[in-house]
């Protein structure tokens, strides 16, 4: 049991995900990796207006949220965008919204047909 809260493991994962996404610098790193996967820390530092140390810290946070996965190839550490957790979170809310939209369409349809 978590102390003093009813946080589930899913909540913890969601917290990490939203915190990781709540920074423009980190979102920019994800954009870079979406365009081209497998970039190293040095490559990711290019065109980023921050220190290597800061980029490294952001990458660690993205990894903790499972938004970035890495693998070692020779001496290089390659970084990849992993959108799987975003899918999981989208699934949690898309369905309810979908129902609202479908209902709205249904109302429109019956009004037009009346």
């Amino acid at each position, binding site marked *: 049991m978590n102390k003093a809260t009813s946080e589930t493991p899913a909540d913890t994962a969601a917290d990490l995900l939203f915190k990781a996404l709540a920074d423009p610098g980190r979102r920019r790193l994800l954009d870079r990796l979406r365009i*081209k*996967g*497998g970039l190293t820390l040095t490559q990711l530092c290019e065109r980023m207006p921050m220190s290597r140390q800061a980029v490294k810290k952001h990458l660690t946070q993205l990894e903790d949220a*499972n938004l970035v*996965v890495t*693998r070692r190839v020779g001496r290089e550490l*390659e970084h*990849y965008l*992993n*959108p*799987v*957790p*975003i*899918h*999981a979170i*989208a*699934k949690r809310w*898309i*369905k309810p919204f*979908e129902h609202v939209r479908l209902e709205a369409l249904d109302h429109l349809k019956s009004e037009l047909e009346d």
Partner: protein
Amino acid sequence: MVTKTETQTYMYATYIRTTPEKLWEALTQGDWSVKYWMGFRVEFELKAGGRVRIVAPKGMEHLGNHDGKVLAWEPGRKLVYEFVTTDKDKPEVTAKRNGPSRVTYELTPMGSLVRFRLIHENLLPEDQEKDPNTFRGINNGWPAVISSLKSLLETGREIDFKSDCA
């Protein structure tokens, strides 16, 4: 200047509340894959060097089957296979390919979870789907399939892409 064909790699990871044995079964048996892989049925010859076919469901034959060879078969741990998509390629894309693409599944037990990593290598920039609002393309397809696999193993219910995310 020598132009070298630039290949691309995709890598995905998820943590699933299951056992490596159960996950292996779901990954290698067609009766499981039809549920989480949008109707696609996997057919593995259960050994390295064996054949693998991934068969499109009825009504979606235009998406094509994937055929290839099993390159590594380590039950509960690691599976590597060729993922051939050439039947859908334009001729100029086929000419650029340096052999079939390769899919690796890695299963690592971590406490009550299994870390599942999927690495898809030797792809071309042409394999990337630029439009994110579709499940077409390697980059849009895998995350959806992996989420559905996780959902099926943890809740007994796969993601129904038609009604859940239409």
